[in-house]
Structures are given as structure tokens and as C-alpha cells.
């Protein structure tokens, strides 16, 4: 039996005296589309940074397809495509050159398909330094999609896209999930998660305060649940 796509085991992260993530235990199976929501500062980006190997947990461990991210980062990244909130790119390359490099590193094909999905086709040969923020995000997304990774981690990756591109990307993510990939989409826009995800995990003050199937919620119920849980958190 194959290992779960993502496992957080008792993960805690402290920044000095500030506890950003507080004992998160989470298992995401393969073929799941999971939304991660929470208020600003809830710990979403810290969780994703730890998941992608950019931050080390103060306690606990994180596995991607059975590989400990912090013991074998390269091994974990082979299973993982990630788009951080502010993606770093080589400004002096064109998107096509950058994606070709990523494809070579991953031993992947499908560069043109990735460009088409993200709507970068016409601008693929311009230097990235001339791109707008939205186009930079599309480039990072195209790089994450290359090689059909088993796990996709997207930090606010859809919200910055124009509506036609967002629709195509959502459809592609759904196709990947149906084919067995796992998508973890972090956002603070509840409607986005409600529209695309099967399951939603809510973080508040670094803790998981809700983990529910989207189908079990009434239409529009996610927002009220979100506000309810936030209120409960505030009340202690």
C-alpha cells in the first residue's frame, strides 16, 4: 500500500517566544483536493514552508509520499511541486528557458502543455523580469505542474490569476486529483476552497480547528463555519 501523500506528525514551530504552529497532526491521502484556510497569521504559510522544506519544525516531522522532508529534502521534492506565495524566479531567463531547466531537472516532458494551461504561451519567450506579478505566479505554477508530481502545494496560487486562467488551472488541478495526485491549496478566500476542494482544513492561531468534507457543508456553509470557529477561538 502506498504511503499517504502528506503527513504532519505533531508538528510545532516556534519563532522565539511566538508559537506559529502548535502540534498539527494531519494526514492527507492520495487523490485528495484539500483547502487550507485561516486568517492572516494563522500559520498557513509556515505550514507550507515546512512542508516544502524551507523551514524546519521545532518539533515533529513531515512526510511527503513517505519521505521525511527534512531528512531527504531532494527525495521529497521529487514527489512535490510547489508554488510559494511570492515565488522566486530567475529574472534574466525567459519563462520557456526556466521551465526547460525545471523539466530537465525533473526528467519531465510537457513544457508546452504547462505553458498552455497557465496561459503563458505568447509571453513564454520574454524575460521574466518584464513580467507582472500575475505572470510570475503563472510561471511558478507551470514549473510546479511539470513532471506530474504526486503532490502539489499551492500558496495563494489561484487568487492572483485572471478569471479565464484561473478556470483552466482549476480544471487541470481537478484532472490531476482524479488521476491520483493530491493538491493542498492554501488561501484566505473561502469561496475558492468551497468551489474546488473536497476537504477543508482550517487553521487558527497555529492549530487545526476544523477538518471537514466540503460535501458535508450546506451551500455557503463554509464561511459561516469559518466565522463560527474563529469566534470560538477568540472566546477561548
Amino acid at each position, binding site marked *: 500500500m502506498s504511503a499517504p501523500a502528506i503527513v504532519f506528525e505533531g508538528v510545532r514551530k516556534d519563532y522565539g517566544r511566538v508559537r506559529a504552529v502548535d502540534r498539527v497532526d494531519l494526514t492527507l491521502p492520495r487523490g485528495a483536493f484539500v483547502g487550507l484556510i485561516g486568517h492572516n497569521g494563522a500559520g498557513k504559510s509556515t505550514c507550507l514552508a515546512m512542508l516544502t522544506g524551507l523551514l524546519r519544525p521545532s518539533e515533529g516531522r513531515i512526510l511527503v509520499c513517505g519521505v521525511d522532508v527534512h531528512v531527504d529534502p531532494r527525495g521529497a521534492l521529487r514527489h512535490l511541486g510547489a508554488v510559494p506565495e511570492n515565488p522566486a524566479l*530567475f529574472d534574466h531567463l525567459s519563462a520557456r*528557458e526556466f521551465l526547460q531547466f525545471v523539466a530537465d531537472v525533473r526528467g519531465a516532458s510537457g513544457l508546452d502543455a504547462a505553458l498552455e494551461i497557465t496561459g503563458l504561451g505568447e509571453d513564454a519567450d520574454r524575460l521574466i523580469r518584464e513580467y507582472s506579478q500575475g505572470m510570475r505566479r503563472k510561471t511558478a505554477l507551470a514549473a510546479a505542474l511539470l513532471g506530474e508530481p504526486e503532490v502539489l502545494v499551492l500558496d495563494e496560487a489561484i487568487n492572483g490569476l485572471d478569471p479565464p486562467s484561473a478556470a483552466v488551472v482549476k480544471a487541470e488541478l481537478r484532472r490531476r486529483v482524479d488521476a491520483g495526485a493530491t493538491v493542498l491549496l492554501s488561501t484566505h478566500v473561502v469561496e475558492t476552497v468551497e468551489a474546488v476542494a473536497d476537504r477543508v482544513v482550517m487553521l487558527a492561531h497555529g492549530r487545526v480547528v476544523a477538518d471537514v468534507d466540503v460535501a458535508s457543508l450546506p451551500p455557503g456553509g463554509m464561511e459561516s463555519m469559518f466565522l463560527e470557529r474563529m469566534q470560538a477561538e477568540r472566546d477561548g
Partner: protein
Amino acid sequence: MGQPYTRLYATLRARSAGTTRSTLALTLGVAAALVPLVRPVFMGFLDQPEIPTADGLREVWIRASAVALVSMGLAVHGTVLRGGARAVLQLHPVDPVAVVREEVGAALRSQLPILLGLCILLTPIGLSVGWSAWAVGVGLVLGASLASLTTSTVAFLGAVEAAESPRWAPVLDQLRGNNPRPQAALMYALVPVAIVAGWTSMQAAQAAAELWRAPGGPVFAPGALAAALPWVVAAAAWPMVPRVASRNWFRASLVLADIRARYESVIDPLEARRVAWDWTLGRLPAPVAREALGVLRYGWRVRRSVLSVGWLIAFAALAMAWREDLTAPLRAGLIAGAVGWVMGLVALQSTQSEPAFLVVWLDRADTSRALGAAWAVLCWSSSAVLVGAAASLLRHGVASAASTAALGFAGVALAAAVTAVVVSRRGGIAPFVAAGLLVTAATAAWFLGRVA
């Protein structure tokens, strides 16, 4: 697996070839302009028969090797450990050994202007002692640089492991002061480099200089083979690079992120918004002040280690000015001027890392950006000049202090002018550049007259 990495770095190199050529031309031009200054200040033995040639050569070679060694160490730190490529590559399953190999190559290429500049600065030796002495000097400088390249790579990547090792924790806690423990490991990584590469470079210079001990040298002696020591060190450290790269390149991202997070958690938010030298911006035109504030803030946040090194060099200016030697104030001025160049690089990096679209969208005036960057260079480096000038004043009097300040500020003005030119990428600020060059030339002429 090497090919994609080689192609990537070759493309990036080709795209910045224009800047590289400009930097090379500027550095070589500055080095050529400094030759008449360097000869009387650092190569007095060429004109004073009572100083043995061998001793003079040794001192010059040691100094030139030290410059090459430190400069390369900082380049490795800025490229292999904290290079811009890390932020992009750390999210992909790249081969760390191939990446580090390319980064080491990039660090070496970045030092070519410095190395060639040193070759030019050594030309008085070729003209007075002989070109064989010049060639030996070049070999020593190159050896020191290569020894620093490989040992620094091993040291910085090795320090990543030490940063998280409980075994090193008690030592690092003694050294770190207010810095996070991992930062102390990276800060002091250059110490073993200085010990290994620095000591062997000194031994090499000593051994090579002995060739000129007898009148009419060089006279070969077997001991002179020790001049190859830095090359041996460079070759011996190179095989260790793949091991530390595969173990620690990815891990370095975690350590660097940890350092950033620890700094951010300990810094009071209000304190974090404060910027050194921001009090100087009050009387500047608003657009220039805004740009200068950006460079001061971003430069401090991203390149604080380089700025700190610049200020450490300022203390060298103080120590130099404190000496009894009559040329001490002028040497201090030269050192202070060099600080200006270090700070100029920081200002340049701060502005060059901005995406072009941001400059266009925000409709930021070219001249304001250039003047803002130049102002930041002046602010950062003036402390070095003032420290040296104050020491000169106390030890040698007003005239000497004036010469330290004049020479220091001339170097700073030139660095600020060059920074402004590169930042603006247009000719709109030509008058400021001309002023910088004029001040430098006038000071150099005045200085030469004084030495004569």
C-alpha cells in the same frame, strides 16, 4: 545531470555579460589610476635601497594575497551560501553537487576583476624588480584566491552543519553575542579559512621572497617550492566540496530561514522599521529621500554582513592612522576609500535586484534612483572616513587628518558616482559622475604632490 545546470548558469552569465564587462573595465581603470598612489604608499622599498627587496616583496605579496583571500571568501558567502539562485532552486529536486560546482565557478568569475586589478597594482614590481617577480606575485595572489575559493566553500557549507550541531553549541554561544547561534556559525566560518589559506599564503610569500634575498636575484632554492602551498591547499580542499554540498546545500536553506526568523522574532517591530542614517534624509528632495531610504533599508536587511565587514575595515583605517609612520594617514585614507567601494556594491545589489516592471509601473525617476543609491553609499562609508580622519587628527595633526579625509572621501565619491551610473543606466546624471571623477583626480594629484 551536469548539462542543465551548465546551460542555466551559462545563460544567466550571457544575460549579464554587459554588466560584467562594465565592472571589469571600471575596476581595471580604477586599478590603473591607483598605480601611482600604490607605489609610494605600499612599495616604498622600490625607492629606498636600505630596505631589502626580499622583505619588501614579501610584505606586498602578503597584503595582495590577503585582499584576494578575503574578497574571494566574501564572494563564496554571497554566491554559494546566500546567492539569489538558492531561492529559486531550493523548491526543485536539483543536484546540489552540480549547483555548488556552478556557484563556485560563478564566485571565481566574479573575482576576475579583483584579481586582474591586483595584477595591475603589482606592475611597479615588474617595472623595478623584474617581470619574474611580478609573475611570482600574480601566482601567489591567484593561489591565495583559489585556496580561499575551495576552503571557503567547504567552510561555509560545513558551518551549516555546525550551526545545528549540539557539539558546537557551547562554542557558538560564547561567540555569538546578540546574534542567533546559527548566524555565529556562518559569521565565523571564515576564521578557519583565514587560518588555513591565510597561513599558507603567508608561508608561500615568505618562501617566494627568499628567491630575491641575494643581490641580483632571483636565485632558486628548494625552499621556494613552498610558494606553491596555496595551490596545494586549493587542490586538497576541492575533493571535499561534493560531500559537503550533498549533505548541506538544501540544509543551508533551513538554517538561513531559521536565522531570518530568529532575527524577526527578536526585533521589535518599531525598531525593525528604523534605518541607520535615516536622519540624513530630512533635507533631501522627497523622491531622492524615498529612494535612499529604500536602499538603506533593503541594503541593511539583505546585506548586513557585507556592511558589517565594511565597517570592520573602517577599524583597520583607524588602526592604520594610529601608527607613527608618516604615510599612515594616507594609507588610512586609501582604506577608507576602499570601504566606499564595498558599500557601493551593496547599494548596487539593492537596486539591481528590483524587478524592472516595478520601476516602470511606479514611474520612478531614473535620476532619483541613482542619487538615492549614491546617497546611501555616502552615508554608509562616511563613518569609515571619519573614523580614520579622527585618528589621524589625534596622532598626526590637522593637515594629515585632512589628507585622510580627502583621500577617503575621494574614493567614496568615486564609488557613489559609479553606483549612480550603473543604477541609472542612462546618461542623465553625467554631471554627478564628472564631479566624482574630478574630485578623485584632484585629490590624487594633490596627494602625489604631497608625497613628492
